[in-house]
């Protein structure tokens, strides 16, 4: 017994001492070897690559070739490299390589259309490389009035995004791509009702109008609302609004309802394949060969075929729809403070015929008295619009237009 106890104690001691001494070992190691520390940070209009060193500045050489910016340092001694994990709009990756008497840092950028500035400081010794867009065309709106107070960081991000993601062709009005926003329900169909008398149709319209405003102010997209007042619109008419305008994305806004009053939170849906395994395989094939289907539609103008294809239009866009749903849900989570109910798939009628990436956002529960009160406030509605807008932005970044 005693022996065992002793062994356990010594084991613990070894364990503890490793933990105690290891950081100091690391520390002493880093003291003796010269090191270089790499980090990337995004600012309003540029990304900054910061190269800090533990030794006085050495001569370096920078070269840009298409997507790559290469920085060569003279160094004979071995160097240790420290790097931080980063996420940046302009910088894709950093690679570190070693030559006979030099080290090379290769900065892979997201686009070849970028320019850079570099400068050094002696104390602390560092080399700074700022990477920004070459063409700095002003995009209409430019956030001048749009100062919704979520945080300055948010605004910066939006500003940057709106500049980096828009190809120059978007600036002309006739080329403007359309985003279709669908405020759920309307007219005689009120949707879910709250305990305090809130109607889903009013809240969705209010959020939809706010979202249209934000998008048109900040992005060179035209926004089409499936309804801009309290009126009846069939689910088919809503999908048709997307297809007739050759929409870039379709976003349907809803407020949720449950038999349980305590049900709460936000969730984003995209269409589920309502098909047996066999059919699913067939549809998956079609998804991967959507260009063939389009050719077929042009060739065979039979109503029947058109009907079937129209009916399944959304199946060709499921992957992108899931991406859009994820982007929006992430922003809802970080901006609204509501419970995250996640991304789900369900056979929503309004999504089935939409021939572009399409999602349905269930903002919060109108059947929950606490959330109902929130849904009725201008602030919450504006936050929802802002969150959806930001989700849309990250989707656009992932799916730039050709």
């Amino acid at each position, binding site marked *: 017994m005693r022996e065992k106890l002793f062994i356990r104690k010594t084991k613990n001691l070894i364990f503890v001492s490793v933990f105690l001494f290891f950081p100091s070992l690391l520390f002493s190691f880093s003291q003796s070897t010269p090191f270089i520390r790499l980090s990337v940070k995004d600012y309003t209009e540029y990304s900054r690559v910061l190269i800090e060193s533990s030794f006085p500045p050495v001569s370096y050489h920078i070269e840009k070739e298409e997507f790559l910016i290469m920085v060569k340092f003279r160094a004979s001694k071995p160097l240790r490299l420290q790097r931080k994990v980063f996420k940046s709009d302009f910088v894709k990756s950093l690679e570190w390589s070693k030559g006979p008497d030099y080290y090379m840092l290769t900065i892979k950028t997201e686009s070849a259309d970028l320019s850079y500035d570099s400068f050094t400081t002696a104390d602390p010794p560092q080399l700074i490389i700022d990477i920004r867009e070459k063409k700095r065309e002003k995009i209409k709106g430019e956030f001048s009035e749009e100062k919704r107070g979520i945080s300055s960081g948010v605004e910066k991000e939006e500003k940057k995004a709106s500049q980096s993601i828009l190809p120059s062709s978007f600036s002309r009005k006739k080329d403007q791509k359309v985003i279709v926003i669908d405020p759920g329900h309307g007219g005689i169909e009120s*949707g*879910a009702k709250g305990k305090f008398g809130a109607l889903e149709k009013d809240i969705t319209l209010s959020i939809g109008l706010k979202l249209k405003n934000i998008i048109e102010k900040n992005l060179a997209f035209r926004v089409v609302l499936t309804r801009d007042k309290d009126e009846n619109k069939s689910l088919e008419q809503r999908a048709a609004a997307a297809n007739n305008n050759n929409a870039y994305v379709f976003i349907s806004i809803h407020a*949720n*309802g449950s038999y349980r009053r305590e049900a709460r939170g936000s969730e984003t*849906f995209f269409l589920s394949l309502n*098909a047996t395994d066999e059919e699913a395989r067939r549809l998956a094939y079609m998804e991967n060969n959507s260009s063939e289907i389009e050719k077929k539609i042009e060739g065979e103008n039979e109503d029947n075929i058109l009907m079937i294809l129209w009916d399944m239009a959304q199946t060709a866009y499921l992957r992108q729809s899931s991406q859009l749903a994820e982007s929006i849900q992430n922003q809802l989570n970080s901006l609204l403070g509501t419970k995250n109910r996640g991304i789900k798939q369900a056979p929503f009628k*309004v999504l*089935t015929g939409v021939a572009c990436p399409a999602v349905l956002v269930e903002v919060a*529960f109108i059947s929950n008295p606490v959330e109902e009160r929130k849904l009725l406030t201008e602030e919450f509605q504006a936050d929802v619009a802002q969150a959806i807008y930001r989700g849309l932005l990250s989707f656009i970044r992932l799916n730039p237009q050709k």
Partner: protein
Amino acid sequence: MVVKKRVFVGLLFVLMVILIVVFFQSGSKDEIKLTSSPSSLESEMRASGPREMRKVVLFFLSERDNLFHPEERLIEVDKSIVLMAKRTIEELMKGSQRGFISPFPPGIKLREVFLCKEGILYVDFSKDIQSRHLYGSNAEISTIFSTVNSLAYNFKPIKKVFILINGDEKETLGGHIDLTHPLVPHYDLIVN
């Protein structure tokens, strides 16, 4: 003594008949066309004579994790899958015993159930399912996929479920889930 005993037995018999009549009367309100007797669990327990029972798994939506949870029930075995499907829906209509969300608003009637060759089960509800519904995605998903998942999970020949309302095909219950096509089960929404 013998007379007294006979009177007592007679009284008991009359009482039983009354009870049976009352019981059957209350069942007939449900407009059940295919079943000859109510198939609730309690009636099965009370009924005399050996009846073969089988287990069915019902799925109810939980508010806590927003997923469907299984609950077991016993229904009477029958050669007809349609009849067993009907009994399963009736069990669903009684709601959860573990506090999950009951998929149907109270007072909904099951009008008809029939199975076609391709494995599509048509389930026809009274129109109250639309008028009394709460209209929210969550409520619609609960009603529709409790039904579709429970039926397809328990009966292999049922591949899809087509929900009708008052004998007609409807676009949706309240503006969300598509009812113009037969629905396949959505097992992704089930816990685990």
